[in-house]
């Protein structure tokens, strides 16, 4: 199945792309996607197992099974709002 990984802010700059289409095995989880990305772009995040991911605009656990066509956003620590 195919999913899209999206990157923002520091992740986007370190990976050098806004998004990547990834082909994964059926039943792959968010954790599998994170592993794939962190092996392809080593060091883009300090602790890959703690990367926060949102699927379809909702924060999800790394255990979640992805579905074909899902969009998985890699969300660096947020810092909006000021002070």
């Amino acid at each position, binding site marked *: 199945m195919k999913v899209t990984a999206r990157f923002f802010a520091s992740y986007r700059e370190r990976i050098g792309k806004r998004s990547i289409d990834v082909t994964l095995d059926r039943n792959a989880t968010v954790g599998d996607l994170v592993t794939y990305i962190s092996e392809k772009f080593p060091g883009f995040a300090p602790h890959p197992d703690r990367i926060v991911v949102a699927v379809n605009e909702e924060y999800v*656990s790394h255990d979640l099974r992805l579905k074909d066509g899902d969009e998985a956003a890699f*969300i660096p620590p947020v810092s*909006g709002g000021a002070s």
Partner: protein
Amino acid sequence: MIRITRQVLDEKAITSKLKLKVHGAVVTFAGTTRLYSDGKKVRMLEYEAYEPMATKKLREIEADMRKKWKLEDAVIFHRLGNLEVGEVSVFIAAASEHRAEAFDACRFAIEEIKEKVPIWKKEHWVNGKPHWVRADANWEVKIPEPKP
């Protein structure tokens, strides 16, 4: 009402969007870009969002404010793009009959925004390379339990 915008936030215009009939108390919070960060002088801040999700999260926060407290109305505006020092990046207004509710709801909203809304800022100092704020922090969010 919530809005994400690249326009300058006009606090008076935003506050006047509150739909009020009973009145009592209006508490507002403006987050403004600070002159110093880590002791270094800031020249400019760049705000970026994952916009559809940020909109969704701000809507949820506004709904939670109304659920937790008896409010007459509430508005949240967040700005994106390049901001100079002293400009308003986020503006919240909460109105209630009695002051405690407006204070607590407003405070809750900014805490929630800072924790959950996918918006990031890149600091450009007067001297030195720009950096994404908290870029190397270890971050975890509480994943809500799936609804039965």
